[in-house]
């Protein structure tokens, strides 16, 4: 896009502004780069910098750890199921709230955002007290219920933004041509909505995969990957293994995030031009 779209009212940024900006970007990214360096460190007793030597042996050690694999498996299962529930509920909510005006609409959209807007500790202790009151024992499902609840808003946000950009005349045309509601959903709405749902689902997955605060209240004795990580952070036992796991998590979460960004971005460009 040529810059002619916007008048060039802003002259060149001052060096101070540039320094502040790129300094801030460095502040955000140097720690992540450091994690990758540490995964290769040969030191296993402290966090000494610079690492005394570099090695790849810890990757093999980590791959052989059954506790790490068990935690990864549980986290993936929880995230997959929570995301599936969030996609269904988030899409339904977006469908109802995107265009129709009705009593309580604002309250419902606030309700959807609340689990993410309030500190996780509140959602966590609320679920914990509900389970305790109803005498529900901790299980895989108690984790999933919590995760699905705060993942809904992520899918909802993506779906509602897309739905508001889809022209209503498209749906009217489909109905006028004799398609019923389900056919219109399947052949007209879903193809338009698909990439937004995929993006929302990816972000929901990343959110659930990484969540620790609500999880500590709803997991009981179960160990998801973030809970495993917290235990290592508070009482480091196997520093090199933790370093390698951290790198795996970076790699695993970067993929869905970048994919989600790309999916929503191309969708926006498509309708804007």
């Amino acid at each position, binding site marked *: 896009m040529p810059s002619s779209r916007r008048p060039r009212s802003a002259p060149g940024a001052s060096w101070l502004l540039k320094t502040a900006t790129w300094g801030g970007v460095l502040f955000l990214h140097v*720690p992540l780069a450091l994690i990758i360096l540490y995964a290769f460190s040969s030191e296993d007793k402290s966090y000494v910098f610079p690492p005394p030597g570099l090695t790849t042996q810890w990757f093999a050690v980590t791959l052989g750890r059954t506790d790490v694999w068990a935690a990864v498996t549980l986290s993936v299962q929880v995230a997959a199921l929570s995301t599936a529930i969030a996609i*269904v509920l988030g899409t339904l909510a977006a469908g109802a709230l995107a265009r129709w005006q009705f009593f309580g609409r604002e309250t419902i959209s606030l309700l959807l955002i*609340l689990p993410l807007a309030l500190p996780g500790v509140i959602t966590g202790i609320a679920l914990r007290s509900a389970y305790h009151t109803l005498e529900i024992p901790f299980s895989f499902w108690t984790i999933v219920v919590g995760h699905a609840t705060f993942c809904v808003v992520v899918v909802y946000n993506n779906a509602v933004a897309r739905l508001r950009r889809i022209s209503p005349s498209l749906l009217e045309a489909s109905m006028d041509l*004799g398609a019923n509601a*389900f056919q219109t959903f399947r052949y007209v709405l879903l193809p338009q909505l698909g990439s937004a749902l995929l993006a929302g689902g990816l972000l929901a997955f990343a959110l659930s995969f990484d969540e620790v605060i609500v999880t500590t209240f709803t997991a009981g004795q179960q160990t998801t990957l973030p809970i495993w990580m917290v235990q290592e952070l508070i009482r480091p036992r196997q520093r090199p293994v933790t370093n390698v796991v951290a790198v795996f998590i970076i790699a695993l979460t970067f993929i869905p995030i970048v994919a989600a960004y790309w999916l929503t971005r191309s969708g926006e460009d498509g309708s804007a031009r």
Partner: protein
Amino acid sequence: MSTAAVPATRLAPSLSDRLSTLIFSRRGLLPGLLILPPLLWFGIVYLGSLLSLLANAFFSIDEFSGAVVRDISFGNFVAIFSPTNLDVALRSTAMSLSVTAACIAIGFPIAYYMARHARGTGKALLYVAVMLPLWSSYLVRLYAWKLLLAKEGAISWVLQAVGLQWLLDGVLSLPVVGGSSLSFSPLGTFIVFVYMWLPFVILPIQAAIERIPASCLEASADLGAHPAQTFRKVIVPLAMPGIAAGSIFSFSLTLGDYIIPQVIGNSTLYIGQVVYRQQGVAGNLPFAAAFSLVPIVVIGVYLWLAKRKGAFDAL
């Protein structure tokens, strides 16, 4: 529409056709059906849990058996106002406010540059650079700071290399913020909080500045305002909803977090830690429930203030 256009095969409507007709037969039936499952989920799971939280706050615990006594009492609320607990609440609020202030101070220039100076690929890259940390693993980023702030870690090493070790030692010997190393000091906790929530603050501010029409700035300049005046009188007020929106995130997230102060910091407690310990180690769920109402109230007040600044128009 005439029925003549309907093909012969559709004269006998299928089940889905009939359902479809039924759905459209009444106004409001379709949105009602759509909203029903999410509403049930949030009504039962979320609001139900919050109600049980509220109920638990009025219960108490039997000192001998440790069982929850389901009688209404206000003992927990009296206990909240004990000096120790009040101290925790005030310290957490003060930490949240200072983290929010620092996030705005660091985030505003980045947001401003992104919105008004960056173009094309540079802008997309900056956006990704801010968004990636926002979504990437909270624990991994926390772990990175454990590495950075450790006594033998990278920050110490860099400061030693440039001959500024005395500065670090001086800061760490300060009474309130200092500690044995950055990793075990309130200053360390503060730095990590700022780092964690910075992207949450940048993005709403950037969106708000982006929305300022260029004509407003031109008008300001044409009317003879110095760039600094334009900044103060036009840009900052118009960016205020974004600043308020971003600050909600940093404030609320700091107030409830209990992992960061547990990993980085000395043994001073914050609200989240008290809630977590009371329900876990101490086994006093009713008190944990009552204490978790403290951040709800504080955030309620903060949201009310932010709403007056127009934060919800910028979310």
